[in-house]
């Protein structure tokens, strides 16, 4: 077995964190500098997102005033008024300048469709999205990591082939299709299978109050969450499986076995903690996307989250809302990426020494 030279020098995760070149008291400052550099980079990225957003959404052809009032009879005077209200009568650079200054004041404009500030609309929708995608992510990560670990430890086994195969099949399935299928079977009911789940939304009229409300929402959450988990858990499974497979061949694992440790402990105490590192990054990046919601799932199940808001804005088209949601999602991804960088730095001494 050939081992890359740098792995030979690898002190391993259990090594003293001060072993890096920083050493002693000096080690603090590089961490701070590192974090500041990352935060600066993130701020720059967010700035670029703001600029790009403005021009990107101006590339969409058509006159928003006309598109918005399709099938609503308006006289030319009224259309002019609408354009003035939308600020479309000003020169492009003026519109851009207004946009940037407003955005920096955290004012994302007013929705043409809903006639409300975009920040309010987004605030209304964040809760349901966090409930849906947050729950889905927790389940998907636990399921993926658990199956990935088992699949790698017994790689080549029937369990490995089955779980990896199944997760890949589900991953390749279009989300809206799987969602509709589950809805038709478990919400509408097919043949002997009763439709035991609701066909829409997060709650019904006259939902019970108090703790029963949570159960009510949980009942509505089952199908959307199942769809989401089915489609995304494969990534955690695969990353976990491949990084654990990498670790299995390492010398420290052999050493651990040679010490006479039980198979269980070799896996839990030595191999898995090391294999977890790449997965942590993946999870962090995904938390960023959580904010974006799952557009398809929310659309199929009429879940009143950010994804549905974005979808409706595109249908509108409601530029202010599209821009607003787009920027919020981008910002969340950038922030989470930065956090992932910093967390990685803290978790893995190898990054610090690099």
């Amino acid at each position, binding site marked *: 077995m050939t081992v890359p030279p740098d792995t030979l020098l690898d002190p391993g995760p259990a090594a003293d964190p001060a072993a890096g070149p920083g050493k002693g008291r000096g080690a603090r400052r590089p961490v701070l500098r590192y974090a500041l550099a990352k935060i600066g980079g993130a701020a720059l990225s967010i700035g670029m997102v703001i600029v790009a957003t403005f021009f990107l959404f101006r590339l*969409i*052809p*058509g*006159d928003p*005033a*006309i*598109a918005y*009032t*399709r*099938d*609503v*009879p*308006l*006289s*030319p005077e*009224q*259309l002019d*008024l*609408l*354009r003035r*209200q939308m600020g479309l009568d000003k020169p492009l650079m003026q519109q851009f300048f207004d946009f940037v200054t407003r955005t920096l004041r955290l004012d994302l404009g007013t929705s043409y*469709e*809903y*006639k*409300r500030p975009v920040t309010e609309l987004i605030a*209304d*929708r964040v809760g349901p999205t966090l409930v849906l995608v947050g729950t889905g992510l927790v389940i998907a990560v636990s399921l993926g990591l*658990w199956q990935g670990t088992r699949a790698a430890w017994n790689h080549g086994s029937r369990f490995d082939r089955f779980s990896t195969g199944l997760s890949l099949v589900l991953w390749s399935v279009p989300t809206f299709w799987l969602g*509709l299928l589950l*809805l*038709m079977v478990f*919400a*509408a009911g097919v043949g002997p299978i009763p*439709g*035991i789940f609701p*066909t*829409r*939304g997060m*709650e*019904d*009229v*006259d*939902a*019970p109050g108090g703790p*029963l409300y949570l*159960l*009510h929402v*949980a*009942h509505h959450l*089952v199908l959307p969450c199942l769809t989401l988990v089915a489609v995304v858990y494969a990534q955690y499974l695969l990353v976990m499986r491949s990084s654990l497979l990498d670790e299995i061949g390492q010398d420290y694992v052999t050493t651990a076995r040679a010490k006479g440790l039980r198979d269980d402990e070799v896996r839990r105490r030595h191999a898995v903690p090391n294999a977890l590192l790449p997965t942590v990054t993946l999870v962090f990046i995904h938390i960023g996307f959580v904010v974006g919601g799952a557009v398809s799932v*929310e*659309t*199929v*199940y*009429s879940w*009143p989250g950010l994804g*549905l808001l974005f*979808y*409706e804005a595109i249908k509108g*088209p409601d530029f202010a809302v599209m821009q607003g949601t787009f920027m919020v999602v981008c910002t969340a991804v950038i922030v989470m990426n930065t956090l992932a960088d910093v967390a990685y730095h803290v978790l893995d001494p190898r990054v610090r020494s690099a």
Partner: protein
Amino acid sequence: MTRMGARLAALGLTLLLAILPATQALARKAPEPGKKIVRLGVTQAVDSMNPFLAVRIVSSSIHRWMYGSLTTPDPKTLQPSPDLAESWETSDDKLTWTFKIRANAKWSDGKPVTAQDAAWTFNTVMTVDAAKQANGPAVENFESVTATDDRTLVIKTRKPQASMLENPIPIVPKHVWEAVGDIGKFENDTSPAVGAGPFIVAEYKKDTYVKLKSNPGYWRGAPKIDELHVIFYENPEAANAGLKKGEIDLIGRLAAPQFEALAGDPNIVQWNTQGRRATYLQLNHGAQTIDNKPVGDGHPALKDPKVRQAIHYAIDKKALADQVQSGLAVPADGSIVPPMYQEFFWKAEGDDLVTHDIAKANEILDEAGYKKGADGVRTMPDGKRKLEMRFSIHTDTPVEDKIAQFLTGWFKEIGIPLSTRKLDANKFTEETGFTGLFDIAISGWSVNPDPEEVLATHLCSRRPTASGEGGGTESFYCDPEYEKLYQEQLSELDRPKRAEIIKLMQKRLYTDAPVIAIYYPNNLEGYRKDRITSITPIPEDKGILYGGSGYWPFYSLDAVAAPADSADGGSGTGLVVGVVVAVVVVGAAGFLLARRRRSVADERE
């Protein structure tokens, strides 16, 4: 550990199975016995609860249930009938309208409805820009609106306005709205909102539902049902499933495939009636801006009325209605006003009627000098350009794809090869609405009981501005005869005479063919007959339930009352099962913990 995992999984599954029936029992709190509730499914979210801002059908429907207007369409004839105004008269110069506000109408807070409320509402729309969004055009011709006393409202117009009695503006209570401040920012989402319509909003949950309760003080008498729930579905398939399952009782505005999917269910009535929409082709007959400057790249042959007429003859409207709309549409033997509006609908007959006749189409083109080449393609009379044309449709619309296939086949037979251009909605609106970059395009319009606004979309003044901004034209049409007729009907207050003029306008559009109507899609709805016992459509003879004008269908609704035995049974059982589940969960957790301790202890030994 592996055994442990398996045990965990088994336990989880058992728990899940235990919880399912419990949550299902909790899915719906059982209504009070004897209560009549109707749940309407809609595939559109409410855009605003403020009637000055809302433009979506769902919102304006809700506003019609919450508030009254001056008049409302009569459910039998669709003609204006008294609502909050009990009578009206016009001055001899046709410029002054005097409405008498009914004395027995009350706001839901007990205060009387007065002419001051109506005057304040109209004046707000006239003077506050932000308040124009929903119904700005309805007051454009108003000179002044005043209340001369509590019961008399005087509206003065600049020019005579025959459509005055179709004014759709919901009248709001002045004593509540005066204190609002910025109308453009007011959401009107606190319940109960004060209104004078048949229903009062009891609860509004954004993007989820609106719960309305019957208004006991309504001047016509309270509706027969107690509650009307408007439930939002983003996904039409899910709404269908909800209707079949009984989560909702009625859905309107269905597409043909959804409607067909409801067939065979013994509890569901498939409500298939004539609709308020016309689907038509728009022909680029030489698009111009408002200052008569040509724009776009329409095929020059389309400037010739003969070519447009030949194209009309090439279309088999019956085949399109049968095969594209599965027979759920009426072939158009008229123009842009559908036959549902009997009073205004113009039907082509005799020499005017254009039928599917390829030979005749070829004959017209031959006579006009468009010769067929060896390849079967016609050229312009000067021989310079072939009659190759584009057909613009929207992306992702299977119906329009099918229309394109049929047209391509027929047009080939008359020597006009047609290529299909699929455009996303924005690009489509731009090219067919103001830049004129098309030859033939698909289009359609939903018509209100008064067809004035759809007729106005073919006026010269609606063409794009000189700077290229859209003015709302549906055809780039600018025809002196049509303009003259439009002005005439505006000031013709005699209804039958006005209807005649409006028919002449449709005839002009039919024969000159800037647009060619192909069919009138039916209005497709479905409702549960085991829940809804009676409903009056508008118009009463095979009319629309949801999305039509006025409030009759939902005011007249009657439904099955909630049975007495399900009353506390549902939530009671739910509670019991919930407690059982909780006990099981706690027990299982304790058992697991105990086992885990023991296994840890084993390891330590």
